[in-house]
């Protein structure tokens, strides 16, 4: 069975640009969460979506937005990129909101 998939694997952007990251959950999983992992730190929660509705938002600015599609895949958008947005962005899926989360390989974003 396929695990959580994310695209692209790597991305290089310049300050002020916009980026879209994509995630496909494990088949049958209805919840998708996004996390940001800055080098040397643990992942920080950004968003959780369940059945296409936002169920939680972490302490991130409004430049960060996300959505979940009818097939439960998800996109994370970041506008007006800053150098500090450089990080590994992880997507996790779970059957329901409070079930165990399984992570994808991540998208490495570098902002120059």
């Amino acid at each position: 069975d396929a695990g959580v998939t994310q695209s692209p694997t790597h991305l290089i952007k310049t300050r002020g640009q916009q980026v879209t990251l994509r995630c496909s959950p494990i088949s049958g999983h209805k919840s998708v969460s996004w996390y940001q992992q800055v080098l040397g730190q643990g992942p920080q929660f950004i968003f959780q979506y369940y059945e296409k509705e936002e169920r939680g938002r972490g302490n991130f600015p409004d430049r960060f937005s996300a959505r979940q599609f009818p097939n439960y895949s998800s996109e994370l958008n970041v506008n007006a990129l800053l150098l500090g947005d450089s990080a590994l962005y992880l997507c996790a899926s779970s059957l329901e909101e409070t079930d165990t989360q399984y992570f994808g390989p991540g998208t490495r974003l570098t902002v120059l």
Partner: protein
Amino acid sequence: AQSVTQLDSQVPVFEEAPVELRCNYSSSVSVYLFWYVQYPNQGLQLLLKYLSGSTLVESINGFEAEFNKSQTSFHLRKPSVHISDTAEYFCAVAVLRGSTLGRLYFGRGTQLTVWP
């Protein structure tokens, strides 16, 4: 607010030695507890989890962790490590009630390095 403290940022050990990676959390409500492992340039892999029931949980590759409610700890142990266990280990907590339901809170990670 929930918090997770991993008491050691780096743990170097020799192959076949025992190891303990420590994790403490703060929460006033019921929680689920997890250990994830991250190999270089990869995502997180679930190592083991405590949801309910027996306080001692085990993984398929010889790790175990014990939930201690009174000490709010969930330490990870392995009696004999291999070089292939070299990785970053993250402890995580999920709160079961309130506005933060479903999100994971992570510690800063412990880098386990196994030397031959």
